[in-house]
């Protein structure tokens, strides 16, 4: 079987706004590097081949050669304009990864990526997705299920049990990509890269609007002078602030503090 890794050729030197990266400063993000390393580690324990894919112009083959030098077995470049819609890119990638039992991606690319390609891939393949992983524990048996931790909004975490085919996207901090050996680096420059011309249309998605909180009515400040109005808005001079001095034993004091915080609405 195949483990597919999708990597994107980007300017890693910073927020340079360019559709075609300067080859000298281009590579693949730490997140994509981590994805490749996880795939290589799993493949070391199983008999899977690691197929690395990128979508982009000829220059993008540099990242495929880099991946080959680090141990990937096969490389495919989808010949496509880098500014194409994520859904089109995902569909083209899926078309080139038949039989993939796992797809690894970086959580999002360096060039203002939104991380949407992995979810489009999961939708295309109709398999599970585990995106934005911050920690993984690989099992001894490469085919067994394993746990991973996913980042949620507001600093929360979600633990997932991953079994069966899935698209996984990982953060760059999860693992460090191995260094290529000298011999592999030299041979990778001569290895064949399969080139596939992109096909597929844009996937129609429901129109979404950004979340906007409901407006809160605020009364106009009262006061004759600007200073009074500012004071009214900022509330700086009123003595509404909470404060109370108590003298008590520590345990009693702690209870009082908690009660007061609850009363004032700082604690539920």
């Amino acid at each position, binding site marked *: 079987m195949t483990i597919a890794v999708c990597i994107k050729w980007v300017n890693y030197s910073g927020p340079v706004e360019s559709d075609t990266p300067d080859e*000298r400063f281009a590579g693949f993000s730490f997140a994509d590097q981590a994805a490749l390393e996880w795939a290589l580690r799993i493949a070391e324990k199983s008999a899977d081949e690691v197929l690395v894919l990128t979508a982009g112009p000829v220059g993008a083959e540099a990242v495929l050669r880099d991946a080959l030098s680090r141990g990937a077995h096969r490389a495919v470049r989808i010949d496509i304009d880098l500014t194409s819609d994520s859904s089109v890119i995902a569909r083209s990638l899926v078309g080139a990864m038949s039989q993939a039992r796992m797809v690894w991606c970086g959580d999002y690319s360096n060039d203002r990526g939104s991380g949407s390609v992995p979810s489009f891939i999961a939708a295309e393949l109709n398999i599970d997705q585990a995106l934005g992983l911050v920690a993984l524990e690989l099992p001894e048996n490469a085919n067994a299920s394993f746990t991973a931790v996913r980042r949620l909004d507001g600093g929360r975490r979600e633990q997932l049990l991953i079994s069966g085919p899935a698209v996984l996207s990982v953060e760059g901090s999860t693992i460090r990509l191995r*260094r*290529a*050996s*000298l011999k592999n*680096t030299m041979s990778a420059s001569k290895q064949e890269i399969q080139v596939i011309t992109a096909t597929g249309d844009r996937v129609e998605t429901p129109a979404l609007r950004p979340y906007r909180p409901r407006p809160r009515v605020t009364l106009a400040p009262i006061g004759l002078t600007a200073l009074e109005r500012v004071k009214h808005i900022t509330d700086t001079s009123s003595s509404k602030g909470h404060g109370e001095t108590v003298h008590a034993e520590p345990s009693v004091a702690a209870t009082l503090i908690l009660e007061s915080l609850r009363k004032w609405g700082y604690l539920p």
Partner: protein
Amino acid sequence: MTDADIIVVGAGPAGSCAAIAAARSGKRVVLIERGPFPGSKNMYGGVIYPRILDELIPQWFETAPIQRWVIRRSTMVLSDTGALNIDYRSNAWGQAPYNGATAYRPDFDNWLAQQAVAAGADLICSTTVTGLLRDDQGRVCGVSTDRPDGDLTASVVIACDGVNSFLAKQAGLYPNANADNYTLGVKETLSLSKHIIDERFGVRDNQGVDIEILGGTSGVNGGGFIYTNLDTIAVGVVLKLSKLSAQKKRPEDIIAELKRHPAIAPLVEGGEVVEYSAHLIPEAGLEMMPKMVADGLLIAGDAAALCLAAGIWLEGVNFAMASGMYAGQSASAAIDASNVSAASLKSYTNRLNETFVLQDHKKLRKIPHLVLSDRVQHRYPAFVTGVVERMFRVDNPTPKPGVRRIVREERKKAGIKLSELVRDALTGLKGFG
């Protein structure tokens, strides 16, 4: 069988030219560079004299990533407040076959290395060579690198790893390395609009200016430079290492002081620093040159101290390109003759001796020392500018003094003895040929 015929270490100008020459003669060449791409770790002042490329890359000027063609060369002598400027302009230098050009090293070195790749060399970046491999008889037979499984064997190794070459030192070719032979080059790249640069320096289109400066280094022995790129200018100083450390001055403060000089400030005003960089220069020329050949090993460019730093001339890239090219050719010829011993590789040093590479160094042997000497550095700028100031100052109703009197008085004021002046003039005359 070895992994390669020739390993070239370092894809600077010397390394890439060595690789081009060797690959063109049909050899299996591996060019190893520690930076992520050729030129990424390299800096210099800013002017290349690329005519030597005529031999290697005909019509190089059509594809080389040049910023501006130098059509004005100035030499400035700065005292604390005054400046004497000798300026030469030739618009003919702005047309083929050209003379000097400003270029960014990450562009130029990368372009040159791509010529080596086009000639058939394998370029391996992000790989640091950590040592030399030797066979049972002690002959160099390859290199070790910092990559896993990183040893690579070859018939000849050409070390083009720049100033402070660890490979040449490891091969025992620098038995008495001495910090006194090196200067520290420090440079700020200032961003200015093309239009402002054109106006301030009196050039247009892609015409450029090269200004070499004596004085203006805050009392530390050395010199300064200003070069124009399309929309940046390079301002820098070259400082004698031992003096810099003895005087406990910071190089960035010295550049700041130079930029405040009344003759320099109007040229650099409003420029935003977009890059600050520093690098050593092998300054002492012939005095410090090592043996350049060992069994299975050649060294070229700055690694062999071939940079020419002789006051009004700061040329290293052309010396590196030429020596690299000759090293590549000699290594290839030695392999063809199935003899890569030091004796067989000696054709390399013969070639250096026959050409400008060592002939210029021999001719100018005394100049680096003279230019960096305390007298030339600390007394001559005030003396020269003092003489000129008085020649052009009109003190009516006092009549003009004779030039001989001015020279005598200013010489005494600067504390230079007549015998010293004569001696330095003779050394200079002899040295500059």
